[in-house]
């Protein structure tokens, strides 16, 4: 027990000291995950909107695929992406394997279905009169869409926060296509896995504390959003 307590204190001290190597790893995690989220966000909202408001052949199939992708293990995404990006793979010429862009691509694949599924639910739960009211008051299609985004903003923010939580904490895909290269592709989760394997627990615990603090922040933000959103309350 004393050993655990000692490790925890050392980890907190390392965090407080502003250890460059440790915070560099945190920086890689945030840089990769925020990039993936920003790239995926607008197309995912567009797909969610189309699935919610338009009826076309194969719509149910598209929704089923999106829902199925929610549960795909990160290592499976990593495996498929590894095969595509490896030298012998169809995308091997781009030499993306073991780079940050490869990690970003993997995390886009992971967060896209979450963003689509949750925005689809948000749009479906939105009052059908929103678009009609906006249109009758003079909004063009784009302005009406922006109004709808505003009306379901808390539900959409919840989607963003959930998607970010999923990708910042994933380890399988980042490890496989990132390669865990120090100062480049080593992020929080791959570093924890490595340090634990080496028996060096202090840095692992310090990074774990960062992830736990982030998780707490995300859940508190979600709770606050839920208390402020009519749409979220209707969905829950």
């Amino acid at each position, binding site marked *: 027990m004393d050993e655990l307590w000692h490790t925890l204190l050392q980890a907190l001290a390392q965090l407080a000291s502003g250890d460059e190597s440790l915070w560099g790893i945190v920086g890689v995690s945030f840089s990769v995950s925020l990039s993936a989220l920003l790239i995926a966000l607008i197309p995912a909202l567009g797909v969610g909107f189309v699935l919610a408001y338009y009826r076309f052949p194969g719509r149910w199939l598209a929704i089923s695929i999106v829902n199925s992708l929610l549960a795909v293990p990160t290592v499976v995404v990593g495996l498929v992406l590894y095969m595509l990006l490896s030298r012998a793979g169809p995308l091997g010429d781009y030499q993306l394997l073991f780079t940050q862009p490869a990690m970003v691509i993997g995390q886009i694949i992971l967060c896209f279905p979450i963003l689509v599924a949750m925005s689809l639910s948000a749009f479906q739960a939105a*009052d059908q*009169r*929103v678009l*009609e*009211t906006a*249109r*009758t*008051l*003079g*909004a063009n299609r784009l*302005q009406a869409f922006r*109004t709808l985004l*505003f*009306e379901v903003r808390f539900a959409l923010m919840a989607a963003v926060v959930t998607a970010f939580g999923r990708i910042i904490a994933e380890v399988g895909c980042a490890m496989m296509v990132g390669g865990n290269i120090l100062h480049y592709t080593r992020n929080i989760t791959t570093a924890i896995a490595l340090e634990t394997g080496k028996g060096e627990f202090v840095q692992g615990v310090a990074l774990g504390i960062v992830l736990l603090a982030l998780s707490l922040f995300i859940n508190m933000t979600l709770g606050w959003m839920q208390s402020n959103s*009519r749409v979220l309350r209707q969905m829950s």
Partner: protein
Amino acid sequence: MRLVLSNIYQSFAGQTLFTIPELTIESGLAVHLHGPNGSGKSTLMKIIAGLNKPTNGKVERIYDRAQEHQRPAVIYLHQQAYLFDTHVRANVEYGLKLRGEQNPHKVDEALAWAHLENIQHRAAHHLSGGERQRLALARALVLGPQIILLDEPGSNLDMISMERIREMLNDLNQQGTGYILASHQENMLSQDCAHNWYLRDQQLITDKD
């Protein structure tokens, strides 16, 4: 401004809802559109407002003045008004902002007209039924429409709220704004309508017929 409906045919689930060979709606008219539940009153109002396209036929807007193009000439108000998830004043400002117009004085006037000036900073979803209807009317009025379409505006309103809405509608009509009020029953609001139209047996019967 005039609205001209030509050869309107509307079906629902393969069944004819209504057919209107020709109809001209002049701004300034006060019309009570009668019809039983399910006769298609709301659908017709949304077609007139340009929110829905008819199965067949067309609706033309003929403007007398060029500036009428710049604003929503026909505004449709739902049976239960949808208020944007913000405060009362921002709801009134919504349409003005869409066309890039900053006019606090106009917003103040509309709020005062609807007796909402004292609660302009309140969250819109905290308003009562009557206040919601008045806010929806103020939000429309501030845009200077030619015709307002009200879908069952009297339902779920108490007498005091009805009286206020009635005053507002009369006020609007005196300023030259026409309105069509769809309701399956007579009420305080429909009594002021100079024209009565009936949607029944899949036909629209106006007082010209």
